[in-house]
């Protein structure tokens, strides 16, 4: 069989799997919503109609997707090395706190504050991830537990600052900081809430891809993720790389918090993140931990999440049903993804052997 025929057959199979998943999603929507007495298929279409069909809806999906992209990149780089950094939420809060500190307390110094907020957010996110990285590298302490605890620490620290020392002077005792000065705002795009953080996230995705797939260090990280013992045998300095990867991961998550502050919220509020750091884990897995796949996947999730609100507004679907639907859609997307990967995995080995150039094209 010629190579072209193999590729064609595989493409047909993939399409069939994707069509099957979409069909199952629609059927599931119909059943779930039908049970609640709502016209299923129409409501399911409404889920994406708004976010795809209108300028406002699309722009809002992008706003929602922006922190998910950065946090998704953070998760992906760590998971690439099999470092289970589930502390994206905490690192995001750390980044937001640092950005807020710069905006609120740094005196004017010639350059717009926003130019300092974002580096500060990176540094704080990295610092938040440093301790789990060092503990993992030096003592083998589970990064899962340490990063998870870091989430609570950062959120409670944000609570403390909002209720206490950073409480605004113009907020009547309510727990929030004052609004940041105007030079702490990221520019927004043409009357929407889409802000400069989007460009930062897209550039970040390309840079991360280049780092992982176009540098020797990136190759080492990926080898260490695929087979730690082989990497050790090859003489890679895995311990050092663990710390560096955690720093990069934390910096990206911190940046997510920073752009959310400077781009959307413009003041520190307790519990401002609706779980971006956790949703990012889903983004990273759906994107198969590939940096260039993360922006579209984050946008898909942004549409799904904002579309869910629209479903409540236009179709009167209760929010718990919306959650069930979103869960079903994600579940089926993951199932289809796993299904496709297994098929390709079976077919790939004979072709891949002796063709290291394929390695460069990614996963």
């Amino acid at each position: 069989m010629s190579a072209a025929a193999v590729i064609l057959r595989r493409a047909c199979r993939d399409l069939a799997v994707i069509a099957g998943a979409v069909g199952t999603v629609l059927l599931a929507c119909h059943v779930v919503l039908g049970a609640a007495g709502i016209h299923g298929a129409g409501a399911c279409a409404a889920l994406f109609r708004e976010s795809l069909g209108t300028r406002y809806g699309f722009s809002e999906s992008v706003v929602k997707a922006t922190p998910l992209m950065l946090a998704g990149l953070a998760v992906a780089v760590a998971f690439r090395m099999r470092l289970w950094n589930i502390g994206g939420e905490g690192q995001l809060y750390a980044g937001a706190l640092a950005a807020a500190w710069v905006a609120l307390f740094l005196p004017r110094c010639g350059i717009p504050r926003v130019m300092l907020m974002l580096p500060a957010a990176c540094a704080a996110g990295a610092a938040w991830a440093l301790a789990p990285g060092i503990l993992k590298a030096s003592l083998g302490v589970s990064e899962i537990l340490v990063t998870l605890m870091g989430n609570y620490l950062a959120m409670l620290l944000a609570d403390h600052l909002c209720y206490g020392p950073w409480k605004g002077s113009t907020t009547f005792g309510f727990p929030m900081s004052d609004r940041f000065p105007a030079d702490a705002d990221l520019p927004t795009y043409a009357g929407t809430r889409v802000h400069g953080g989007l460009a930062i996230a897209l550039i970040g995705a390309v840079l991360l891809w280049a780092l992982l797939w176009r540098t020797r260090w990136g190759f080492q990280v990926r080898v260490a993720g695929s087979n730690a013992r082989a990497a050790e045998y090859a003489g890679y300095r895995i311990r050092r790389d663990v710390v560096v990867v955690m720093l990069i991961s934390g910096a990206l998550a911190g940046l997510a918090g920073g752009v959310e502050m400077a781009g959307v919220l413009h003041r520190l509020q307790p519990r401002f993140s609706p779980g971006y750091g956790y949703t990012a884990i889903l983004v990273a897995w759906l994107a198969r931990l590939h940096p260039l796949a993360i922006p579209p996947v984050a946008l898909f999730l942004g549409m799904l999440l904002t579309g869910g609100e629209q479903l409540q507004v236009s179709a009167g679907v209760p929010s718990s049903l919306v959650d069930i639907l979103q869960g079903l859609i994600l579940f089926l997307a993951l199932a289809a993804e796993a299904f496709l990967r297994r098929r390709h995995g079976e077919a790939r080995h004979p072709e891949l052997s002796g063709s290291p150039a394929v390695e460069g094209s990614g996963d």
Partner: protein
Amino acid sequence: MVRWNGAWIMAILATVSCGDRASPGRSEAVPAVGDTVAMVDLKVGFVYVGPIGDAGWTFAHDQGRRALETRYRGLKTVYVENVKEGADAERVLTRLAQEGCALVFATSFGYMDAVLATAAKYPRVAFMHATGFKRDANVGTYFGRAYQTIYLAGLAGGALTTSGKIGFVAPVPIPEIIRHINAFTLGAREANPSCTVHVVWTNAWYDPAAEKDAALSLMDTGCDVIMTEGDSPAPLQAAEERGAFAIGYNSDARAFAPTRFITAAVWDWSVLYSRIVDEVLAGIWKAEDYWWGIETGITKLAPWGPAVPETVRQRVGTRQREITDGSFDVFHGPIIRQDGTEAYPAGARATDEELLSMSYFVQGVAGTIPK
């Protein structure tokens, strides 16, 4: 707004023009809720911070929404639940405006910035923000004087405690909750001058697990009456399990503590929501602050639980009448702060501004306000 009964407009104009303050005077007639009025064409949006089934804050607001649908033929309502107090709120508010809502109720404090930003984009839509303090050309604020009812509940709680320790499950340390804790304590110590009110913060409006844990830890330290201001009835359940008395908030959730329920400070938002809908329909709505008291029925005590003795019921009933007719003010001097200094000398009364920004505990509260 079409087909609006002319007589009604006149009646409302007459009612509203009586005073410039949005709060109705005691003699003014608010149309009774439940009377179905003429056919209207209006869409009203609601943004909720929790699920409508929380048996608490959001549930109470949703009851108000349902009452509107019952009362006004043709009126449509739209609501969105579980909207986080962050970047999502502005999108939800915008969607409601786009969907054609002429009046939008944002029912949580943290929506403040989002309400103001959305209102600037939709100047023809009337926005009402619950518990907030910032207004604009088309942004009004509203709340009720629940402290009056909570004071009455405290009076009952103080009479029923035998250990002299009352537990207060408190959600978020903002002036509203601090005011309520103080009112409750003033009531409890009026009935039992030696009792203390112990405060545990959950730092969340709706967190059933944390609220239950807070109630359990309060009972562990000897509290035999539990008051909660969280949005869930979990502390009531915990109190029932341990045999402590329970006082609720938001809605009448006695089913969760059938034998130990004392009462609850419940909301009836329908009276205020109907009034605002009337004003919007008549074209006379103004972006004002509505802070209604017990005399309007917006805040009231739930019917007594089975364990409350007749003497307590009568004592509280007397005070309730005095607050309703204006002869008794909850925050009247002498009021001593927790640190022993005097907040109000005998004869002085707290102003609304002071109540709205209250940031200290009164004597008798055991606990701290996070600083």
